[in-house]
């Protein structure tokens, strides 16, 4: 993400290579040293209105999902009175923040600690809540399927090829439609069964450990 890289470079040039003096304990989930761009963002975000902040957050999440956000960034630049440099700081800082938070396995992701970490970075708790809700992974709400058999195609006069079509609705409101070839389906089924087995095994193991 070009904007994030620009922000990182600019923040480094600012000389914020080390975490702030008075904080000592470091950035919590960000590790022992708060990355320069996150610090710079924390300072700059004080002057950003809530609406602009929400839009920046949306752009950051889109970027993390790999979508192209040049247009949205341009819109924000035009409608707010932020300079390009300020925008670069803010977006790159938020990007790193979210990316690091997302990298943690959900089980170690404790809401209260995250809120506290964000507070230490000097941001209002309400914005912390907005960030928190965005950084959960979606789960599958509904799965519909269909087995199709291709009888004949333009490339293959006699196909007789079964294929599975799936329509997955996620908790974040998105829907995904995709085809699963038979071989991949067997792989999928095997993996899901393996996941369930692993989950059961893990539970059994920890129960045995915790028993006094």
């Amino acid at each position: 993400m070009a904007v994030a890289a620009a922000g990182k470079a600019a923040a480094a040039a600012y000389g914020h290579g080390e975490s702030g003096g008075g904080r000592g304990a470091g950035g919590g989930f960000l590790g022992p040293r708060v990355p320069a761009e996150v610090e710079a963002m924390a300072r700059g975000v004080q002057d950003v209105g809530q609406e602009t902040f929400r839009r920046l957050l949306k752009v950051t999440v889109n970027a993390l999902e790999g979508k192209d956000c040049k247009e949205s960034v341009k819109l924000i630049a035009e409608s707010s009175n932020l300079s390009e440099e300020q925008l670069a700081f803010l977006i790159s800082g938020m990007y790193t923040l979210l990316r690091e938070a997302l990298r943690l396995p959900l089980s170690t992701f404790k809401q209260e600690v995250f809120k506290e970490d964000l507070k230490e970075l000097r941001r209002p708790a309400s914005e912390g809540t907005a960030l928190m809700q965005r950084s959960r992974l979606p789960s599958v709400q509904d799965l519909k399927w269909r087995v199709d058999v291709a009888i004949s195609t333009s490339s293959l006069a006699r196909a007789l090829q079964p294929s599975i079509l799936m329509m997955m609705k996620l908790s974040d409101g998105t829907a995904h439609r995709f085809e699963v070839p038979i071989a991949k389906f067997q792989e999928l089924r095997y993996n899901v069964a393996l996941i369930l087995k692993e989950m059961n095994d893990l539970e059994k193991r920890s129960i045995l450990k915790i028993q006094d």
Partner: protein
Amino acid sequence: MAAPEQPPQPPPPEGSKPLSALLGGIAQVAYYGNADITEELLRGQLYPEAAPEEFRALRAKMGGLLQSIASADMDLNQLEAFLTAQTKKQGGITSDQAAVIAKFWKNHRIKIRESLINQSRWDNVLKNMNWRVDLKSQSRHKDQINTPVAIVEMELGKNGQESEFLCLEFDEAKVSQMLKKLSEIEESMSLLTQTT
């Protein structure tokens, strides 16, 4: 009494290697998406003494035969019947050429069929999946321990486009539900294959 002798197998005729390679080149372009293999390249590599028009005719004829065989996904019986008919035609093929084509099809049939099926897949296809299971080992609230969470990454892609990666989270109940659905699909499919 002298035991009947098997005549020694004749070596493959000289023309078979270039023809086999020509079929390979045709398949590369038509079925494996390799557009770099041009007619000029094939002629220069395989039939350098042939005149361009002569080579073009050969390539067209072989390409047409391969197309008929691939489109019908011929089994060995159909293939034999088809090729024998071609040897008897005016301007058809020689029996040596028929043998080369037959050998080529036996080796490439499955791959070519797979490629043709892919050509009719226009939606996103599940390409890959990765996963891990996490478990809380410490928590302020004891009842939160031992709740495993699965993180699954699914790669969805179309022909020639960059893949989309879906990151999802499942608790044990959801994994169980998913497995149940997949078993239903499996049952439905085995019913299908029984009746065909």
